[in-house]
């Protein structure tokens, strides 16, 4: 209990006076404080009076204490704050803050998008969101008595995505702190001293060279117009703001998309987002508008007439597809599910394949499907990881294996950084990147070919030293004895030799894992380059199981809904919920639910489909992924249907092209890498005549007179999913029902011979969305990736 302005209020331990005041609806002006950041105490506007404390302590840094008596407002404080603000505004163009007419003018201001430099009232990108303005209005400052001094610093526009005009900077330090404290990057800092102090990079390098990842966190926390997103700085306030989930990667960031004039104007991270907590990455923060507003977007269905794709109506196109598909036998048709489809679309696509076409020939166009999913199902019963982002944050040790996580899943590094701040040890095995080293304690430079030897070595150390959770292994695991036997004759030095590390180094790594139970392993696409990726996963499971923490494996899926598409059963060997196609109970359950007969024979995988197409065994292909990497095999295919949002190389051979929608135009759900089912909400209307994928499938099913596709909204589809898919019961993280006994895999099985379970044709999607290269649409992203990826 403490007293603010005579009112007794409760407070939680560790809160600052400012936080307590805000929690109780008492406004104290402040500029440098931010709820995600450590207290800083620089702007000196939140000065208050506290009994028994000397002078005017800042509310933002003073910890609340029992019995404290705080005064937040009186004449003296008001004057003091006003004087401080006057000083701040003597260096910040302030006509926009001081002008009597500012409300009126806001209605009629002209758009000066060509001007880089902010000089006066109408030329500030932050005019509608300016925190300085709020403070000025609160303090009622009407006149600046100090001569105004324009700093005359050059505009900094050389780097991609955002402009920096330090003439507007008030040096609150939020950008520096968010970069360091939250993102763990530290690309920028205060430079120089005294009146010349300025935010900048080391040695005045460009941001590209200074390690910036262009996550935009600095832009989001800037209280002024000093930092502004170049693409949206002049758009003013949006007409509406819709919170949706970013589908560009699998992290599942919640974003607030801003719409104006029926276009997506900007994206800002949602502070309530369970996966991202107000953070975003370069793609989500800056690339969405350019990606979805591109003029080349497909607007109407196309059908091939006289060798050329020509516009057609939905009816005509759908009828054509229905007619042609009806000609083929189940074995002759294949379905390629895009890993960017919503759960609803993926569900309907596999339902259509199985019910409408009577085939299990459906697979996700992703390197992570097939053997990787199979390995997970074998170990866990489901084709998913077991860890969540919260598990990363609370882990004591984290291993990142074979992933350039800073490029593929940048927002996860926020959680890794958080864990590290709380004392976790972070170990990176695999590709290095000088920036990620800023948040890594232990770098183990091992090539993918060395993963198996390395992990086997670690396993041997764990078992030999008996450093495993004996109770867990005895009660929950099968096959420990055979694992132990398989390790018994193994020579540690000989085993690990191929990975190029010394025994001591591996010991050191193992001892990190030994240190504590709460571990987390994130593995990425580089394991696909190892000799046998499936077995890498078995070994990772072995390690986690031996440590008694089966909850902590996170596959770093790339595309937005790779997880969901698998959960929905868009796989040749699994029905929705990873139930095997040969599982009699599951088949009969589904047959009853769908009132249809299901094919008994397992389907062929994506790579097999492509091979079969090359041989002419596959007559029709239904591709929803916009494009596939190698179209040369497809010339033998009789009939190709394509869903896409952009023209793609497949246009040369596609017979029908359906214009689909981008995730910003669609309602539905997608599932993130932590198995979190989240809403997509349509921000704007679809472009032209485009329709969501699930609607297109329904339309064709309708034309083919297949029952069970009479849906009118995505909600209805989701309801059916919840009924038939035992994993999904609604939004939020679905939990894999743990197996009664987990399987430990003996190492004999793992002799590292090159397996051919993974096809080299498998696409990786880190830069792609629905078959198109994002960097082609967003020039700045290209600039950034070229620099980052050593272009």
């Amino acid at each position: 209990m403490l007293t603010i302005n005579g009112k007794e209020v409760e407070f939680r331990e560790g809160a600052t006076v400012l936080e307590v005041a805000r929690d109780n609806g008492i406004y104290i002006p402040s500029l440098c404080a931010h709820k995600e950041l450590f207290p800083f105490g620089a702007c000196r506007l939140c000065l208050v009076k506290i009994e028994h404390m000397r002078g005017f302590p800042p509310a933002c840094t003073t910890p609340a204490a029992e019995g404290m008596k705080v005064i937040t407002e009186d004449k003296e404080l008001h004057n003091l704050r006003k004087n401080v603000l006057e000083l701040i505004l003597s260096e910040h163009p302030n006509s926009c803050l001081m002008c009597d007419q500012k409300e009126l003018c806001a209605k009629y201001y002209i758009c000066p998008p060509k001007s880089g430099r902010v000089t006066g009232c109408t030329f500030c990108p932050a005019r509608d969101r300016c925190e300085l303005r709020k403070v000025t209005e609160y303090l009622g400052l009407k006149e600046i008595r100090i001569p105004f001094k324009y700093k005359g610093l050059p505009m900094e526009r050389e780097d991609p995505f955002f402009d920096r005009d330090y003439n507007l900077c008030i040096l609150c330090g939020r950008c520096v702190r968010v970069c360091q404290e939250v993102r763990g990057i530290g690309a920028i800092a205060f430079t120089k001293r005294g009146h010349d102090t300025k935010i900048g990079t080391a040695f005045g390098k460009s941001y590209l060279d200074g390690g910036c990842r262009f996550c935009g966190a600095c832009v989001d926390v800037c209280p002024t117009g000093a930092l502004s997103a170049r693409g949206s700085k002049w758009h003013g306030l949006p007409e509406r703001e819709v919170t949706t989930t970013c589908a560009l990667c699998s992290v599942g960031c919640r974003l607030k998309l801003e719409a104006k004039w029926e276009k997506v104007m900007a994206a800002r991270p949602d502070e309530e987002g369970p996966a991202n907590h107000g953070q975003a990455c370069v793609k989500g923060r800056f690339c969405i508008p350019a990606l979805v507003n591109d003029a080349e977007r497909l607007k109407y269905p196309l059908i091939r007439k006289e060798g050329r794709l020509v516009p057609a109506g939905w009816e005509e196109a759908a009828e054509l597809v229905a007619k042609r598909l009806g000609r083929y036998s189940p074995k002759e048709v294949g379905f390629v599910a895009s890993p960017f489809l919503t759960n609803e679309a993926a569900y309907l696509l596999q339902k259509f394949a199985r019910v409408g076409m009577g085939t299990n020939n459906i697979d996700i166009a992703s390197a992570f499907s097939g053997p990787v999913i199979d390995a997970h199902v074998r170990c866990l019963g489901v084709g998913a990881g077991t860890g969540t982002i919260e598990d990363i944050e609370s882990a004591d040790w984290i291993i990142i294996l074979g992933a350039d996580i800073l490029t593929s899943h940048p927002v996860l590094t926020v959680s890794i950084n958080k864990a590290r701040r709380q004392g976790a040890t972070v170990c990176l095995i695999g590709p290095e990147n000088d920036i990620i080293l800023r948040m890594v304690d232990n770098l183990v430079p091992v090539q993918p070919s060395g993963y198996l030897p390395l992990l086997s070595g670690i396993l041997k150390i764990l078992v030999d030293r008996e450093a495993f959770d004996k109770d867990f292994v005895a009660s929950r695991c099968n096959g420990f004895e055979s694992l132990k036997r398989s390790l018994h004759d193994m020579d540690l030095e000989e085993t690990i030799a191929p990975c190029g590390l010394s025994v001591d180094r591996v010991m050191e790594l193992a001892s990190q894992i030994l240190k504590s139970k709460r571990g987390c392993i994130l593995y990425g696409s580089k394991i696909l380059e190892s000799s046998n990726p499936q077995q890498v996963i078995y070994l990772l499971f072995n390690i986690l199981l031996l440590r008694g923490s089966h909850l902590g494996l996170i596959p770093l899926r790339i595309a937005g809904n790779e997880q969901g598409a698998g959960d929905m059963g868009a796989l040749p060997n699994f029905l929705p919920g990873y139930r095997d196609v040969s599982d009699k109970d599951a088949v009969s359950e589904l047959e009853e639910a769908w009132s249809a007969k299901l094919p008994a024979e397992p389907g062929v995988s994506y790579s097999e489909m492509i091979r079969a197409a090359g041989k002419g065994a596959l007559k029709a292909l239904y591709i929803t992924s916009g494009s596939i990497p190698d179209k040369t095999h497809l010339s033998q295919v009789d009939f190709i249907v394509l869903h896409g949002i952009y023209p793609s190389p497949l246009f040369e051979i596609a017979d029908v092209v359906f214009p689909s929608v981008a995730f910003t135009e669609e309602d539905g759900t997608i599932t993130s890498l932590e198995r979190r089912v989240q809403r997509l909400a349509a921000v704007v209307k679809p472009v032209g005549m485009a329709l969501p994928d699930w609607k297109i499938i329904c339309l064709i099913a309708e034309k083919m007179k297949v029952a069970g596709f009479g849906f009118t909204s995505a909600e209805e589809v989701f309801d059916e999913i919840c009924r038939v898919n035992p994993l999904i019961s609604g939004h939020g993280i679905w939990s894999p029902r743990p197996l009664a006994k987990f399987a430990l895999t003996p190492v004999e099985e793992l002799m590292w011979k090159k397996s051919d379970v993974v096809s080299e044709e498998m696409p990786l999607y880190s830069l792609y969305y629905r078959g198109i290269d994002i960097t082609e649409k967003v020039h700045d992203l290209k600039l950034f990736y070229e620099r980052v990826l050593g272009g």
Partner: protein
Amino acid sequence: MKKINSVFALEELRNSLIQAIDRQKTVVRVCSSTGCRASGAMQVIDVLGKELTRQGLDDKVEIKKVGCRGFCEKGPLMAVGPKNIFYQKLKPADIPEIVSETLANGIIIDRLLYEDPETKEKIRYESDIPFFKKQVRNVFGRTGKINPASIDDYIVEGGYTALCKALSSMTSQEIIEMISDSGLRGRGGGGFPTGAKWKFCRNVATDTKYVIANGDEGDPGAFMDRSLMEGDPHCILEGMIIGAYAIGASEGYVYVRAEYPLAVQHLSIAIKKAEEYGFLGKNILGSGFDFNIKIKMGAGAFVCGEETALMASIMGKRGMPRPRPPFPAVSGVWGRPTVINNVKTWANVSLIIKNGVDWFTSLGTEKSPGTTIFSVVGNVKNTGLVEVPMGTTFRDIIYGCGRGIQDDKALKAVQTGGPAGGCLPSELIDTPVDFDRLLEMGAMMGSGGMIVMDEDTCMVDIASYFLSFTQAESCGKCSPCRIGTKVMLDILERIKSGQGEEEDLDRLAELAVTIRNASLCGLGQTAPNPVLTTLRYFRDEYEAHIRDKSCPALVCKDLIKYVISEKCVGCGICKKKCPVGAINGKKKELHVIDQSLCVKCGTCYQVCPPKIGAVEKVTGFRKSEREMTNADY
């Protein structure tokens, strides 16, 4: 070297060291501190060594390179033999004579002695020189006497006995009580009671604590911390070890500027030696107490003297202060409880433990016991470091030790406390100086800078000088300090250039209050002090600048001009020396300065022969319209 593991072992060592001293040898102490090195002490020592060999006195004379005596102005300095015959301003050429006369035959060389500026009397012995006579050298008791690179010298002088006493016969509680009872206040300038600080820190229960010695001396003109670190590093270490023991710290840092290479060197040697002797490291003196000290070099930012900025710097971050609470005693370096004290405070600790509370409180005033060190500089005859009891008056320091104002001009003001201190007028010269009295008068103790200013000093100029320093050294973090000091400086510059307005004084006062009340750290909070005190004591000077556009002290360039009076004999020197050719006149006729060309460099004023003295500085004119046009548009 066997580690000293008990009080007796130390006593034994000390006795054997004393026994080993060759009393037949004449000891020549040559100051080899930075100040004397700058005036050539190392060459003097070099020549002295060679000369002794040449004249065969090697085994009769011992050269001791000692620390600073504080009288750097007269360096290089030498004190010969037991009675300390005091030679000053030595040159290598003087050495053969010193060896052959003084060292060989005991003849004192008159011309190398110090001459009192008042009595013109040559003074033979160090202790008779007024500069030293008026001082009470406790903290500086050993500097200038011992070789700072020799731990044995320190032990012979009773070094590390305080540590022995503390570790063998006192509990940490007793040590803190003793420091509290002594009333020792932080010598870094704040004057916070040291005992109370230690108590806070001791009461925090954690596994790791730190102690830090703040040697980041940055005040212009102050060099006592450097002299202490260079001249007697062990007394700082000893104090730190005692303090660490008292609060339960296991690690310590000495933060010292990289610009003080000699201090770094001597401290490094001292730490190494102390480790060798077992005063640092594991199980110190067999007490079971472990403690280590590291040196951290600062890169020379004034603000890093502020404790939280200093700790940020130690942790490898940008030296920017952070608000307190949490205080360092609760959460300091690496987030652990930390006691940070000035190097002089640490030096006092060992003295108090060794000599007792009564000894300490017998000096100084009731609220500020002990001695304090001033760096007396400016327009005073004898400049240098002066250690006097707290409560000594300005008069005793300036006229006693300092021997008055140069050229016997009148005293105008004394500035204490470094750039953030205050300017006090000559009327206050009989005020006893201690922490509280200085604060009352609007100044502060600071780290002990004392700048004496004569009648030719313009107080507006002085205020703007100090403000320009703090302004440039602001870390840039908090807005009142970063922007406010700059705005104040701009106003002062305007006043100095004759464009001040009547309202400027109120503006300055208001800004000063805002900056003082709203700034984050001590640097900002005290930055307006020079302006506030000059406004308080010398308001008339500001008014003269603003109303009459005149600079009474004839300093502000824009408000003065040089004219040639009737006394001119037409010698033509000024005309010849004028860098811009602004002086016209025929030989043997009155010369005239063309004001439109004059750049006010003052060359003519300097070159005009004193017996003629025809060039004069005048002020108090209003700028003519034409000049305004040229200069201001």
